């Protein structure tokens, strides 16, 4: 299952809710302001990093670059472009938007 999150964890609790629901082996894509959750060393980073032992986290590269945080992304988070975004939705039978 793919979870997509478009809100910053410093603004809304959608990433928090997502991580508490995501089952082992699922994928989470951070996009739009959701990419702020991918910043290394932030107050949210530890929570996301501990979740990364069971889930795979991706971040949408154009949104990461637009916010100037490309060199601050947590190690292990995979950057994808829009083609990669589409591939993730094709590879996962269910796509849930945490709006």
């Amino acid at each position, binding site marked *: 299952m793919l979870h*997509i999150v*478009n809100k910053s964890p410093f603004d809304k609790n959608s990433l928090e809710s997502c991580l508490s629901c995501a089952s082992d082996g699922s994928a989470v894509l951070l*996009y*739009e*302001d959701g990419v702020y959750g991918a910043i290394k060393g932030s107050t949210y980073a530890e929570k996301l990093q501990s979740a990364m032992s069971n889930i795979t986290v991706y971040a949408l590269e*154009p*949104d990461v670059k637009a916010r100037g945080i490309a060199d601050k992304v947590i190690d292990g988070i995979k950057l994808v*472009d*829009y*083609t990669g*975004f*589409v*591939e993730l*939705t*094709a590879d996962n039978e269910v*796509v849930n*938007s945490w*709006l």
Partner: protein
Amino acid sequence: MKYTIQINEGPYTHQASDSAYNFTKAVLEKGYEVFRVFFYHDGVNNATRLTTPPQDDRNVVNRWSELAAAHDLDLVVCVAAAQRRGIADAEESQRNGKDADNLAPGFRISGLGQLIEGGIISDRLVVFGD
């Protein structure tokens, strides 16, 4: 692989309409089918042809119309959401006794059943919004 894409947010609000547009383009470039794009809630504001952004800004509405023309996309606007927000085609305008219509080319007004059908027929339903 067949997709229906749902958009719940208006243009120039946050980023949902841009994300949905880029995603839809990537789906088509990948060779997958876009069965329908459904505009719901404030997303219906993506369908007014009266949108006039500054010349150096993207025209979110025209961009959808152009993509629809190039790929024969079915852009469906929810009728109840559209009525509330003053989005109407000629027929809807006349039916409601209004003096103007504003639906952009390539869009059509229909009901929520079209979203349900999109969800049933498509392999994936991807929702963009606020």
